[in-house]
């Protein structure tokens, strides 16, 4: 039997929205439907748009972006499962005749309705000072899971009576204490109808059962061993909890760190990592955005995935800063030194190049804005990050072009 000791890795180099989903789907199409897409950070807040060659389009959040091409998904222990939203996504996929195979590590943390409620309440209270959260309780889940009395993992979903008790303790004891800790104690009573609704609790217990029915948890890790793996990152390096600009960050390691830990456990020997960036910089939600522009930098930008929501506002734009890009990649790759047995090959992918629409490329390097042809821009980018042979992306479903 051929053992796969090499895995491909897709990591966003910006604030998200780089085109990770598209590149993941591209990898899967090269490998075949034997591939398994591994989610190694984040949770259901991801939104990875993939357009299949046959025109089917899906925005992946829980399910790995290879599913339209038939690849299975592995939700690792670094991924936060959200049964409510997972089932919503399965319904959307079913409408497109896709029934994905999803493996889940039983120790993965699980989001409850109360994490979502707390997240939404707090983000609303922050008003103009909001952190840019999606309002689906991802960070709140991790916070709650720090307390053993209220922690919830996929394994805890199995027994409905244990689950019911845990949920009840979360809504009665944890939620008011957490809201008090966040300085908004009064919001618990104001939202008491939500927290006290037994209907919501019972619907969730039902959803937990459906989640288990729709996924494979037993021996999940053994099932993916020696299969061709594509690690699909969520969010981007600039949102990393340790390296981004706190508090406008996501509560996970968006770079190589989790991949390295999983690769080590799975006995992999080599990782081919691609860092993905758009030809310009975008940010969704609050927080600093260097070189921000008041409007779209290029005329051809059309984004149907990122519609404004209550919690994050609209998509923001900036020119690409190549020094910032180089620094982010360099810092992330430095983590690989902890695992000397693993060989890490890094590459760069630049997407959305078609959106320049014939205009000159504009970017910052050395603190100065440059205007150049597309070729000069690509050459400057590869030089700035110290990686050659980038992949170039033109258009939503177009093939990625290797560039010499």
């Amino acid at each position, binding site marked *: 039997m051929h053992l796969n000791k090499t895995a491909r890795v897709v990591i966003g180099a910006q604030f*998200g*929205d780089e085109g990770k989903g598209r590149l993941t789907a591209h990898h899967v199409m090269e490998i075949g439907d034997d591939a398994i897409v591994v989610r190694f950070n984040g949770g*259901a*807040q*991801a*939104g990875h748009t993939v357009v299949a060659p046959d025109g089917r389009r899906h*925005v992946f*959040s*829980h399910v790995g972006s290879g599913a339209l091409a038939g690849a299975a998904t592995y939700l690792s222990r670094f991924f936060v499962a*959200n049964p*409510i*939203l997972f089932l*919503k*996504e399965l319904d959307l996929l079913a409408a497109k005749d896709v029934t994905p195979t999803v493996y889940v590590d039983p120790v993965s943390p699980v989001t409850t*309705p109360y994490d*979502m*409620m707390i997240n*939404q309440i707090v983000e*609303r209270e922050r008003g103009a000072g909001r952190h840019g959260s*999606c*309002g*689906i309780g991802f960070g709140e889940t991790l916070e709650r899971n720090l307390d053993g*009395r209220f922690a919830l993992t996929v394994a805890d979903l199995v027994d409905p*009576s244990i689950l*019911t*008790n845990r*949920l*009840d*303790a979360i809504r*009665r*004891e944890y939620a008011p204490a957490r809201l008090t800790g966040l300085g908004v104690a009064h919001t618990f009573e104001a939202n008491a109808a*939500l927290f006290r*609704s*037994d*209907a*919501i*609790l*019972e*619907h969730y217990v*039902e959803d937990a059962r459906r989640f288990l029915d729709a996924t494979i948890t037993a021996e999940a890790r053994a099932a993916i061993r020696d299969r061709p793996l594509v690690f699909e990152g969520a969010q981007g390096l600039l949102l990393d909890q340790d390296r981004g600009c706190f508090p406008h960050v996501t509560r996970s390691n968006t770079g190589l760190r989790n991949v390295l830990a999983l690769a080590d456990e799975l006995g992999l020997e080599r990782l081919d990592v691609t860092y993905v960036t758009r030809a310009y910089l975008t940010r*969704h*939600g609050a927080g600093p955005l260097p070189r921000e522009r008041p409007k779209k930098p290029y005329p051809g930008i059309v984004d149907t*995935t*990122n519609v404004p*929501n*209550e919690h*994050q506002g609209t*998509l923001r734009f900036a020119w690409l800063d190549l020094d910032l890009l180089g620094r982010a990649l360099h810092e992330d790759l430095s983590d690989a030194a902890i695992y000397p047995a693993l060989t890490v090959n890094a590459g760069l992918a630049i997407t959305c190049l078609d959106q320049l629409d014939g205009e000159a490329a504009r970017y910052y390097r050395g603190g100065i804005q440059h205007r150049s042809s597309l070729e000069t821009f690509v050459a400057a980018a590869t030089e700035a990050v110290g990686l050659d042979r980038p992949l170039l992306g033109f258009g939503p479903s177009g093939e990625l072009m290797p560039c010499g």
Partner: protein
Amino acid sequence: MGTARWNPSDWTSYAKSTARKTTDTVFASRGMDKDLDPLGVVMRESRDSDLNPASTAIVVGLDVTGSMGMIADALARKGLGTMVEEILARKPVSDPHILCAGIGDVLYDRAPLQVTQFEADIRIARQLEKIWLEKGGGGNSCESYTLPWYFAALHTSIDCFEKRGKKGYLFTVGDEEPPRDLPAKAIARFIGDRPQRDFSSHELLTMVSRMYHVFHVIVEEGSHARRDPHGVRSRWVDLLGQRVIGLSDHTKLAEVIVSAIEVNEGRDRDRVAKSWSSWQTALVVQRAVGGLTPSPSSVAGVVRF
């Protein structure tokens, strides 16, 4: 950003589309059912009959306050019914007659006591559905577990004791501490008697122990018992001695109560525990009844702890 969106307004439809019946619809009660109201009840009777010639009265009171949370739902909805079935099936005592009670807090609740009739068969299930889960209780750390003691002592008439000198059984089930006393005002308000003064819990225990073997089951999963497990237990032990039973898994209430009765009737503890088919049940029972010893005397009038 993702497509995974969830707006606060989505909760409304999420709550509506529950596939199963919710707690609220199973227990539709929005107030105490008049059939369960102890106010003005002279006697609840457990009488021998042709079908049940040697009846034994069993009273089980369940804490239905907020600190019990969903466990109150689970126990009231399923646990009590299972318990009745188990008692009727295993018959740890002859011809069991069962009365169920809902217990709240006299300081905070509108219905701190609700009592069914004594029933000899599963018809009691229909009365259980009427129990109002007020989910009240309050900031004190006790519930009025002694209110059913008072009621049983003075407002039940049981043939097992009166005709045959054999005590009935009284179990209270909950996660909080016993109260220190029961105010005369509360007795007047909820039961309708006009006592001259308050009763201490010790006095009430002495009164009720004349006719009943009294036990308390601590629901260790309840939020109060989890916060202060030792405090709850030690305060109950001060009052009841060895007749305090720790219930680690609320789904095993029926087995634990049946086992406690069996041990009290003189059956061997270990053998009782092992008689349950699943090892999980055996383990919970073993832990719960481990401290019990057979009643020193089943002769009336002997109160010993």
